[in-house]
């Protein structure tokens, strides 16, 4: 029955379109002309649009166009990267377009199409290539870091190709995905991981990207329905352009250096502490002291290096037989700070955009491919470099590859016996571990956009997209290596394959209704999305190739799969170029839910008032733009969770996990934990925004206020023991509210012939509060513990730290003494309190770009305030870890000098530290030689420093840690980059 309703909606939308298509007939003239750029070169594919109507055409390869237009109408010329131009209709028009600021360009990419900027109703931010972050950027999302208010991009560390956590307006969920939907050229990417690629986005070459559009509020995103609660990022890649082929070659070389070392005891400090504390024996004979060596080893120097990388990209774009094309290739060779980390990426892409039937059928064929060849370092070396005894030599005469390892000498056999429970030599961890992967990925789309011959206002758009990838790798560790001593080394492999397919079909009807001064833009569509992963299982092997008993997998592979089916529609109606009303509706069916919970319906309404076009504003000359936007919408979320959460699924255990019955070994039939009633998480969101521009847009910006309320949160919550087949269950519990303000302000203080200066500031405030956790209605219910000492509880930020309040004596924390919060005389779980949140209250971004003659200078700074981090490196800085009864010594974080703690005090709020920071992401300089080689080419040089400085009170390595728990992070390097770009 529910299904039937969805069809009704769909059919209704189709009908609307047909009914409006009935209106037609006008008095027209034929306009011909050409469009050129500021250099006098013809521009092809410029959109020539009869203002206020859907009648439009594109310029050809010579920049020429012909269009039928009403005699008294105006024509608008738009082209990405250029200021749009509007002029009255004449029979001949020769137009020159000026390069423009994309923020103000008139076409804005939205879900399933584009709209005029004036029609934009939601909170949408666009960043185009000229505003991208500069320098050695190897993964796309870093291009817009710090550029958009309310969008936080936190890299997962400094490893080559490492991904980032992207959060738009703080994320809406507790346990389902908080990642925004990323759509590349109309094809939504699945969030599924590829084995051997630390980050699926790292297979997209940032140089192929021309713009990012971020849809933040529900009115803009609701058209993406169930996948939109966390915002949508639309990535547009470069397409072919004008007649003469343009060849662009860019090259970069960079040096990444260790920006800061982890703060550990120096060998002298370590000796001093062990001398004073290590008088006891570990075995009744030998003292701890006697375990010390005579060397002074800085283990961090041993494992880190200055990493050299190069990035080269070549592209050719032009038109062949009037068919625009772009071909690009790229080669990236990136070293990591860890001395065995290396990523090589080869990318290629072809875009062809032919048109047929007198511009009625536009086709975009887009194929991109990437091949990554990676060696992953053993990241365990980083924490080992903190903890390994600094008085030991790196090398020693040992059977473990001649590295020093903790071992004891056995008198009887005159042999060294490895201490299997001790930490391992950091350098050996790196050098004796070889994890190499190869990843192949291809993604692309074929998009057909057909303008009906008998009804040009109606378009049918079919988009077929695919994304396939294969990742495979091997891990080799020699038999003698201490790290896999018991397993006699490793010769293991892993692989998986991804197969995602997308089919989208929509009809768009765009029609002006002059009698009502109205403009109607209606869309109705259908989408089918299938994501399938094949994960192969392998046994574990010793270095010699023997299978380790008990590791032979029961199944050769697993193939998790999800499908989503959607119907959607949208109507945008604009009156008198001043008032725009938009509404959308989408129904989604997800394979993740039981048939009774499967379908979710999402809708939105939005209103825009172009205030500056009102009569009463005519006299306010200082104000060049003023627009009010209001919206409300509902979106859903089902991504980021296990594929089959509603079903009791039985798997049978395999080798090594069998149960003895008599003389047989039985596989165990094991049920998964499940919640048969699990359903969509839903977010309702209000947004109010104001766009403004002053002094002919020398100052412009926007302010947005939002309020989001998410209910039926999907949360993996600890459940009472005895109620399910796991200690934690993914279920719908509770509500979360997000409210915030975002401000974006750009000013152009200087705009002269030789000099221009643009500064842009953005600021976002976000407050995220849990308002209900329905698992229990009991007011004494403290909340859902997450990790060791964080909690989701009502009235607080998600993942608030849940700790004991440390008692201090003369500023020094007293070991094991905490504030008795409830005064009952004992310190127990009732005395834990919620102390701060890992999420920032304010996120700030600042960009500046100064151009003087041929020079340019730019910088980007970012700041977060109000975010706290649990310093889980410092928690290990206790005497008990230094002198281990398992017969070894270990170094620690220097915090031990501040606390002198003997045993771990992991639940103390002492370790929750203010991690507010200011980071200069980028400082760059460019020199533009302009036209060289007899005006045949242009050349530009750049030099950048990335991660210039971080100002923070946080005592750990880096305050920018998503989730707020600082285990060992791969250090983010400080990188110096030189680049050249030449264009023919």
């Amino acid at each position, binding site marked *: 029955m529910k299904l039937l309703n969805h069809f009704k909606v769909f059919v209704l939308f189709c009908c609307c379109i047909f009914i409006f298509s009935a209106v037609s007939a006008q008095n027209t003239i034929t306009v011909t002309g050409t469009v050129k750029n500021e250099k006098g070169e013809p521009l092809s594919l410029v959109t020539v649009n009869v203002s206020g109507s859907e009648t439009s055409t594109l310029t050809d390869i010579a920049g020429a166009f012909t269009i039928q237009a009403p005699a008294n109408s105006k024509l608008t010329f738009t082209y990405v990267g250029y200021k749009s131009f509007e002029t009255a209709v004449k029979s001949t028009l020769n137009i020159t377009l000026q390069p423009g600021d994309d923020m103000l360009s008139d076409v804005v990419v939205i879900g399933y199409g584009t709209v005029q900027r004036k029609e934009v109703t939601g909170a949408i931010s666009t960043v185009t290539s000229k505003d991208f972050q500069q320098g050695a950027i190897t993964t796309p999302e870093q291009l817009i870091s710090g550029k958009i208010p309310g969008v936080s991009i936190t890299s997962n560390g400094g490893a080559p190709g490492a991904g980032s956590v992207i959060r738009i307006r703080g994320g809406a969920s507790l346990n389902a995905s908080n990642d925004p939907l990323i759509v590349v050229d109309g094809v939504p990417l699945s969030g599924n991981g590829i084995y051997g690629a630390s980050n699926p986005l790292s297979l997209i070459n940032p140089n192929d990207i021309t713009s990012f559009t971020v849809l933040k509020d529900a009115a803009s995103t609701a058209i993406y329905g169930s996948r939109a609660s966390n915002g949508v990022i639309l990535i547009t890649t470069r397409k072919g352009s004008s007649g003469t082929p343009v060849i662009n070659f860019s090259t970069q070389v960079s040096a990444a250096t260790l920006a800061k070392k982890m703060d550990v005891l120096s060998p002298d400090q370590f000796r001093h502490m062990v001398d004073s504390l290590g008088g006891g024996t570990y075995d009744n004979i030998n003292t701890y002291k006697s375990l010390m060596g005579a060397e002074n080893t800085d283990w961090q120097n041993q494992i880190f290096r200055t990493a050299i990388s190069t990035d080269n990209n070549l592209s050719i774009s032009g038109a062949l037989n009037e068919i625009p094309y772009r071909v690009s290739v790229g080669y990236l060779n990136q070293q990591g700070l860890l001395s065995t980390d290396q990523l090589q990426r080869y990318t290629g892409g072809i875009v062809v955009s032919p048109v047929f039937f007198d511009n009625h059928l536009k086709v975009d064929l887009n194929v991109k491919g990437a091949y990554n060849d990676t060696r992953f370092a053993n990241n365990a070396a980083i924490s080992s470099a903190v903890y390994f005894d600094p008085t030991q030599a790196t090398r020693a005469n040992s059977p473990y590859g001649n590295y020093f390892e903790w071992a004891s000498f056995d008198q009887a056999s005159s042999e060294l016996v490895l201490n299997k429970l001790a930490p391992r030599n950091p350098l050996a961890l790196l050098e004796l571990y070889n994890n190499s992967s190869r990843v192949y990925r291809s993604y692309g789309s074929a998009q057909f956009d057909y303008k009906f011959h008998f009804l040009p206002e109606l378009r049918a758009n079919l988009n077929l997209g695919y994304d396939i990838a294969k990742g495979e790798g091997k891990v080799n560790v020699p038999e003698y290596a201490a790290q896999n001593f018991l397993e006699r080394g490793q010769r293991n492999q892993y692989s998986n394959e991804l197969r995602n397919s997308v089919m989208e079909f929509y009809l768009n009807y765009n029609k002006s209704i002059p009698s009502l001064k109205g403009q109607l833009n209606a869309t109705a569509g259908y989408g089918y999305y299938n994501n399938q992963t094949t994960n192969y299982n392998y046994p574990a092997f010793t270095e010699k190739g023997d299978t380790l008993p008990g590791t032979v997998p029961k199944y050769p592979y697993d193939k998790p799969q999800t499908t989503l089916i959607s119907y959607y529609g949208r109507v945008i109606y604009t009156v008198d170029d001043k008032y725009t009303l938009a509404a959308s509706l989408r129904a989604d069916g997800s*394979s993740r839910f039981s048939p009774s919970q499967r379908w979710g319906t999402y809708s939105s309404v939005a209103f825009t008032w172009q205030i500056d076009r009102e009569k009463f504003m005519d006299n306010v000359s200082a104000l060049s733009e003023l627009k009010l936007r209001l919206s409300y919408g509902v979106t859903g979320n089902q991504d980021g969770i296990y594929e089959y959460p509603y*079903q009791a699924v039985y798997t049978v255990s395999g080798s090594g996990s069998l*149960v*003895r019955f008599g003389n047989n070994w039985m596989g165990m039939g094991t049920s998964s934990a499940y919640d048969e009633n699990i359903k969509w998480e839903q977010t309702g969101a209000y947004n109010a925004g104001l766009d403004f521009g002053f002094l002919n847009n020398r100052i412009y910006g926007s302010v947005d206020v939002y309020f989001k309320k998410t209910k039926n949160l999907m949360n993996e919550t600890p459940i009472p023991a*005895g109620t399910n087949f796991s200690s934690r269950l993914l279920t719908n519990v509770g509500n979360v509210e997000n409210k915030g303000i975002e401000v974006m302000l750009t000013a152009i203080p200087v705009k002269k012939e030789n000099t221009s200066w643009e500064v842009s500031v953005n600021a976002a405030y976000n407050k995220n509060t849990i308002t209900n956790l329905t698992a229990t209605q009991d007011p004494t219910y403290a909340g859902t513990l997450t990790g060791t000492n964080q909690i989701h509880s009502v009235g607080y930020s998600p993942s608030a730290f849940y700790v004991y309040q440390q008692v201090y004596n003369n500023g020094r924390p007293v070991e094991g003494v905490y504030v008795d919060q409830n005064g009952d005389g004992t310190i127990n779980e009732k005395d834990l309190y919620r102390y701060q949140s890992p999420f920032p209250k304010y996120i700030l971004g600042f960009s500046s770009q100064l151009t003087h003659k041929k020079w340019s200078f730019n910088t980007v700074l970012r700041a977060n305030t109000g975010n706290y981090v649990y310093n889980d490196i410092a928690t290990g800085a206790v005497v008990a870890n230094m002198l281990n009864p398992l017969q070894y010594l270990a170094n620690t974080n220097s915090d031990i000098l501040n606390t002198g703690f003997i*045993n771990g005090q992991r639940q103390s709020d002492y370790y929750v530290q203010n991690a507010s920071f200011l980071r200069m992401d980028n400082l760059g300089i460019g020199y533009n030689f302009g036209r060289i080689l007899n005006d045949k080419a242009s050349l530009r040089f750049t030099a950048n420093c990335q991660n210039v400085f971080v100002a923070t009170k946080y005592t750990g390595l880096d305050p920018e840690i998503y989730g707020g728990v600082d285990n060992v992070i791969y250090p983010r390097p400080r990188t110096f980059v030189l680049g050249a770009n030449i264009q023919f």
Partner: protein
Amino acid sequence: MKKIFNIHTIAAAIFLITFSACHRKLDLQPENANTADKQFSTLHGYKEVLAKVYGSYSLVSSTGVGVSDVNIAGISDAGTTDFLRAWWNLQELSTDEAICAWNDPFLVNFHNLNWTSNNIFIHAAYGRSLFQITVANEFIRQSAEEKITERGFSAQEADEIRQFKAEARFLRAFQYWVLMDLFGNPPFVTEDHPIGKYIPEQIQRRDLFDYIESELKAIENDLAAPRENEYARADRAAAWALLARVYLNATVYTGQDRFTNAITYSKKVIDAGYALKSNYKTLFMSDNDVNNPEIILPIAYDAVESQNYGGTTFLVCSAHGNNPEDNANFGIPNGGWLGNRSTKNLPLAFGDYSGNTDKRALFGGTNLEVNDVFTFNDGLSVYKFNNKTSAGVTPPSPNGVLCSIDFPLFRLAEMHLVYAESVLRGGSGGSTAEALAYMNELRERAYENTSGNFTSINLNEILNERLRELYWEGFRRTDLIRYGLFTGSTYVWPWKGGVKDGTGVAPHFVLYPIPAAEILVNTNLTQNNNY
């Protein structure tokens, strides 16, 4: 216009048909798995799930040694959540039988008898017991008479499923005994409760006692006759043995003596055809699954097929240091975790603890005194569990660490001791003479002659005999509580109360606290007093 409409009507119709076919694509199921109905459609499928009921106490998960069914914040080592290891920590480390040198947070609190409700090891034991109960409940639900009928099994198959079901009920009763003994008043879930999200009620210790008793009696006839079931599966004698154990401690659980019942049920086991294994030492070696007339129900481990870093691997490896010959001699060439050893009270209970007189004294090392808790060589090592076979062969192991010894969860010797103690404590239906005879059977095996035989027995001697016979098998805490010696200062041992010579502790430590994290999620639970 009309024509257009027609074309589009047809197009719309085509869409509708195509799309509704697509909707079936939303019914997806995992590649390598069964729905419940499929899994329980065959007798073999039932038996696979029964294997999981057993596997819940013999393994940490269905997906290898590194993953656990029981996830506890703060525990990263899956082996810590193994049933035997978790239970053993609570039953032994809190007593004079064992002390651990590892400096893991929360572990030292067992020797100190000052644990708190946020102790992750206590949580591990609690979570593991309730996990096995949950798995058993589901099996019992799926084995309801109407399900058996519905699924069309033959009469013979149906009988076999009924026997499986009785075994699941036995294992559930066993875990409820564990919970009753450790925590007093645990949450109570049975097959009448759903799988999903709900808040279980708490049951009082006395009511739980009645439930365990009634369950064990109810399944008696459905269980296989003693010694008639497949190896490592429970039979009727296992249920009797558990009843005897529960009755022996009834005073602690309910305030009421049930020694007469303890005599009845221990005698049933003794008369069921079991015999003491002639060589005590071989009871705990890796071939203890063959030619062993004494074990009533083991937990079966295997270094290759049934891997677990808890279980007997833990008992052997944690008891050894880093002497390579010594480790090789006990079948763990790459083992030796420098963890557990004894306080002097254990070896001293043997008088001559060299093993020359009483062969059960299986110790290593030289230092009786534990001067430093964290020095492994302080205190004698306990070499009772040995991964070699009785013929001196080291069984196959992938890494020289994992062990293949089966753990005797119930064995005949315990029944001898239950019988004797119950008689002495005034139970009827037995005789002092028979009690003495049963005791002396143990002594004769231990001494390999009659020189150690008792001429008379008293309750204290029985406690000491239990120490000598059953040490490190998970009995000591329960025994000391039954004798009123666990808390207080009547009886102390090194490091009791955190002091080298031992000191008295508060009486509330006779129960473990319900884990703090469980109190947070299950608002029906009331914490035990003084935690």
